[in-house]
């Protein structure tokens, strides 16, 4: 089995490195290297958006989430994603319009906010904010797939070697070909993700005797899985509101996604891309529910790694198991490289100087970010979905500042908003680490902080107008 996996992995790596070499055409400017020329059509846009959004978190985290917390997980992700897609159309338009009107060459949200607020401190704050919360998000992708590989091949390699190999592969091909290479490989990775998740989903459904039989067995095993708040009481109203807020704001608060809004050819392509993405989300999330229910019936008491190892690997035929493994590697790589690259782009957007030299600095920074994420991956825990959710919620704290920059008439007059945003970030980090309470006046920190910041920003804009 390991031999087959190595052959399949080599073919896969050769293809993506081939794509990276193919996309090396043209001069290595910031626009070409970091923004892929900024003329993406809707189909390519949909795949790259989907591949960077749906990751190990979806393919491995969501089945486990359904298994442990029940079918309310659908509302957590699919409902929030549907709102996010509408948000891409609603506010994506304003983001593109604002960039166009400011005649700014968009290379990252940090640089754009620096320009709009006319304050380098706002730019630095944006960069620090995304760095703090994206590093754990990249780390869980790497860790997720590494623990799966370690579970599938316990005697082959230690966890740190799996994790390091993944980081090396993604750094090599993204360094070679830039964002274009990532976008081309995202097509391959998006298709693989969809095929793999459906193969396993249908397998799980069939082996349980179809939809009705499956839910009958789940009801007999633990009927709390079939409703909210789920067996562990996680799915409360506040949990859903916090998740929806975090996920809805992703296209603006997480740079790898806002970059994808900005590199679309025109608004029409953006809207078509968003529609495709909305449908893709439903298609990807549905089978993860079947996989989760299969786990709830057969592997209720196992750890996440053991459940995933058995369901996605041991219970499958050899060919499917190899395909699943490659699909998982692809999903992890596609999101991680986009995130690492976006961090490089954010840094580049803050740098001033000769373009070629700045691109080279960004490339070195991407390698450094990759190493930081690798270290974090080796130290983090296995709660993939909850760590991802912390990342979504954390970056959403930046959203009021970003929306002020995009929508306000004179954002420079409100540069002081960086101070409450910084306080909000510190409060959120402290409450996530358990240093401060997670709940204030009965409301969870991840809800109350962005709301308070939003009210402050709205008040400031309203007062300055009147």
């Amino acid at each position, binding site marked *: 089995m390991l031999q087959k996996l190595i052959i399949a992995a080599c073919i896969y790596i050769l293809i993506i490195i081939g794509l990276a070499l193919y996309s090396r055409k043209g001069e290595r400017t910031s626009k070409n290297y970091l923004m892929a020329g900024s003329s993406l059509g809707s189909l390519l846009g949909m795949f790259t958006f989907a591949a960077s959004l749906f990751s190990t978190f979806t393919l491995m985290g969501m089945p486990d989430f359904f298994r442990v917390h029940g079918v309310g997980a659908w509302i957590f992700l699919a409902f929030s994603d549907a709102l996010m897609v*509408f948000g891409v*159309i609603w506010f994506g*338009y304003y983001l593109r319009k604002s960039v166009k009107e400011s005649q700014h060459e968009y290379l990252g949200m940090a640089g754009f906010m620096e320009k709009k607020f006319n304050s380098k401190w706002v730019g630095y704050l944006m960069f620090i904010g995304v760095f703090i919360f994206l590093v754990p998000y990249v780390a869980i992708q790497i860790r997720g797939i590494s623990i799966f590989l370690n579970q599938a091949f316990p005697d082959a390699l230690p966890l740190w070697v799996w994790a390091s190999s993944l980081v090396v592969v993604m750094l090599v091909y993204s360094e070679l070909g830039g964002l274009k290479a990532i976008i081309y490989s995202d097509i391959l990775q998006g298709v693989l993700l969809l095929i793999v998740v459906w193969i396993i989903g249908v397998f799980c459904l069939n082996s349980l005797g179809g939809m009705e039989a499956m839910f009958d067995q789940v009801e007999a095993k633990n009927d709390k899985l*079939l409703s*909210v708040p789920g067996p562990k009481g996680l799915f409360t109203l506040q949990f*859903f509101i916090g998740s929806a807020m975090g996920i809805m704001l992703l296209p603006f608060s997480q740079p790898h996604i806002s970059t994808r809004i900005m590199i679309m050819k025109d608004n029409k392509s953006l809207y078509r891309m*968003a529609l495709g993405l909305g449908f893709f989300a439903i298609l990807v999330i549905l089978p993860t529910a079947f996989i989760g229910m299969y786990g709830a019936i057969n592997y209720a008491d196992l750890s996440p790694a053991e459940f995933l190892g058995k369901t996605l690997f041991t219970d499958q035929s050899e060919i499917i198991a190899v395909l699943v493994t490659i699909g998982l590697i692809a999903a992890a790589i596609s999101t991680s490289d986009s995130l690492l690259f976006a961090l490089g782009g954010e840094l580049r957007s803050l740098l001033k100087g000769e373009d070629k030299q700045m691109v080279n600095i960004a490339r070195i920074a991407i390698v450094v970010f990759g190493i930081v994420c690798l270290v974090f991956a080796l130290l983090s825990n296995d709660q993939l979905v909850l760590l991802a959710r912390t990342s979504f919620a954390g970056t959403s704290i930046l959203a009021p500042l970003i929306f002020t920059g995009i929508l306000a008439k004179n954002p420079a007059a409100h540069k002081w908003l960086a101070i409450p945003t910084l306080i909000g970030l510190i409060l959120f980090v402290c409450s996530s680490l358990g240093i401060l309470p997670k709940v204030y006046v009965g409301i969870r920190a991840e809800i109350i902080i962005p709301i308070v910041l939003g009210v402050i920003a709205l008040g400031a804009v309203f007062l300055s107008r009147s």
Partner: protein
Amino acid sequence: MKDTIWKICCALVIIIAVLTLSPLVLSEGKHKPELMGMPYILWVGIAISLLLWVITYVGVLFHPGKDD
């Protein structure tokens, strides 16, 4: 007209979001009525996702900045 339909779409999305997060959908311990064996929260959740997609589709057709 275009602008009005777009605004209606925005309003509908907000209303559906509020209704989804209300006890109408998030009713504790409720898993009936079922549809094709699926528990209440799952099939209603799928229906809401599809409905939001349809509204987004209509919204795209009538978005005021579509041809910018």
